[in-house]
């Protein structure tokens, strides 16, 4: 099991709202999300595509696509500093140094026309002011940190000369190069093979154990959550609908959506006769009905679910859920 997370709060997100203003109306991609993250803790943000987990991550970095997207409300406090009131210039000092991100696809997140050394060195040069030989040595050191063999030679390679797993390690090296307080990993292993995925997850866990870094893991795969996270927040239609420790969520999931997501996971250990599946699709975020957004797909829906959004209820210490069933 993992060691206990430190008690120090690193990140506090309070009532974050990120909306997209489009021709067809306002899309409430993130609608009142709150969570906190302690030192060394890893939090899993789980949900289907379009539930707002990636936009939440982009909001933390203030990288929401402009001009359609805007953070319209809430607070993001990182190490006691409010990020939303920072200027763009100040934000540049935060990104990559205090909080950094690994994206899903290493094929597109590295620039194909620059050598690895340049791309790894960029953030180090900007945040740590290193130049020349010391910059080169530092870049070599971070490649070694992510277990890339022959880092000296790799610094001179181009991304296309490397395999997908190696490329994703380089992306990891860039993100980790300035020892960020918070690392956001947005589905970092979906494009990797299973064996390479296992290697990569182990690497992230080892690095986290040796540093004081906190991790936000964005995924729709409960296997990754089971393997990597201390706490879980399940998102649906721009809101967190259930949160708790990873054991609580796996042992007694309370929200019907969480239960359905867990039931839809195919076990490797056995072979069920028929798979459980959640019928229907996530709702369109253009004009959500006033009640619970999961209403249409919920097997335990009642009339009141359609009318009002349920408030957060604590079912056990640290485990809370937004569902009328739990009230």
């Amino acid at each position, binding site marked *: 099991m993992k060691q206990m997370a430190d008690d120090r709060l690193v990140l506090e997100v309070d009532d974050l709202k990120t909306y997209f203003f489009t021709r067809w109306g306002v899309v409430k991609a993130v609608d009142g999300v709150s969570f906190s993250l302690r030192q060394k803790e890893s939090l899993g943000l789980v949900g289907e595509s379009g539930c707002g987990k990636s936009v939440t991550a982009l909001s933390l970095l203030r990288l929401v696509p402009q001009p359609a997207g805007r953070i319209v409300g809430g607070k993001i406090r990182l190490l006691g500093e409010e990020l939303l009131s920072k200027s763009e210039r100040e934000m540049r000092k935060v990104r990559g140094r205090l909080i950094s991100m690994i994206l899903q696809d290493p094929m597109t997140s590295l620039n194909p026309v620059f050598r690895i050394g340049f791309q790894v060195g960029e953030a180090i040069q900007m945040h740590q002011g290193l130049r020349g030989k010391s910059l080169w040595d530092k870049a070599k050191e971070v490649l070694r940190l992510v277990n890339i063999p022959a880092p000296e030679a790799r610094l001179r390679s181009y991304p296309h000369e490397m395999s997908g797993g190696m490329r994703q390690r380089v992306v990891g090296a860039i993100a980790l190069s300035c020892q960020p307080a918070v690392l956001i990993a947005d589905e970092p292993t979906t494009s990797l093979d299973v064996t390479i995925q296992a290697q990569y997850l182990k690497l992230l866990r080892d690095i986290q154990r040796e540093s004081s870094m906190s991790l936000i893991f964005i995924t729709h*795969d409960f296997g990754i959550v089971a393997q990597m996270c201390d706490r879980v927040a399940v998102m649906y239609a721009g809101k967190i609908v259930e949160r708790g420790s990873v054991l609580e969520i796996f042992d007694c999931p309370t929200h019907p959506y969480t239960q359905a*997501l867990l039931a*839809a996971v195919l076990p490797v250990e056995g072979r069920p006769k028929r798979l459980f599946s*959640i019928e229907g699709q996530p709702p369109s975020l253009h004009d959500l009905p006033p009640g619970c957004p999961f209403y249409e797909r919920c097997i335990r829906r009642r009339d009141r679910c359609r009318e009002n959004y349920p408030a957060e209820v604590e079912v056990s210490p640290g485990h809370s859920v937004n569902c009328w069933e739990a009230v």
Partner: protein
Amino acid sequence: MLPLLLEAVGLKKHFPVTEGLVYQRVVGWIKAVDGIDFTVKHGETFGLVGESGCGKTTTSKLILLLETKTAGTLRFDGADIHGFNSTALKRYRASVQAVFQDPYSSLNPRMRVGDIVGEPLRINNVLSASALKERVEEVLTQVGLLPEAIARYPHEFSGGQRQRIAIARSLAPYSRLIVLDEPVSALDVSIRAQIMNLLQDLQQKLGLTFLLIAHNLATVRYMSKQVAIMYTGKIVEMGESDEIFTHPLHPYTQALFYAALPSHPRHRREESPLIGEVPNPLNPPPGCLFHPRCVYAKPVCRAEEPLLREEAPGHTVACHLY
């Protein structure tokens, strides 16, 4: 009807690696598929598992005739497909269809759903316009979409619905064998279950045969009757799915199972199952191709390539350990 629908014997596909722009010289060969034998029975699902670059997609392309084989034989319903005349070839192409991984790139965004699904029928000129429309509506209903979808464009559908459209297209020409190349890996976990259930239902109802290509073991176990594990162009283990999943023999198969993530946080794993990556196909190691990553490697593994041998009834493995 013969019990075997598809039979591959010694199937090979080697790609030349060339140097020079004008006078291209061949400097090496990539043995993407290097002598594989397998059989697919009527109405069953055959699963091909392996990491990227192991040759599973090339195998499917050989079956779909999108690549020409270097050597070996492919038999469909007992007849060698390379001896087919143009009429037989056309019939073969209609009865073997494919569903690809990414429903965002496998459907033409400028075509209406009705045209996409009807295209294989139109190419084969088998039906009149009204019969074609009827058939398209029929297959759309079979995959759980409304017939009204005909007039809409792919962008109006979600990922899961698009994959349903791709499945409808593969059903349209009354196909018998469908190659499913990672059919659910681009989809959300919740949608995966819907699509897998749909495929199972269609197989039962229509007596379809599937060749499933995937790297997710749970998917393969759920869907297939027979499984073959591929590694750098060769089959290293093959047998009944339940047998392989309960008694994996090859160290690579065992490592693949070990790499699959736990389904509960109490079963966390600390060690990484495999070191290193798939070897460079241009410069493969001598002996067993897996030996540089194998924890049980012995001197003989470095020197001699193991052959597929039957270890248990219907369960073959290529490894010096047995």
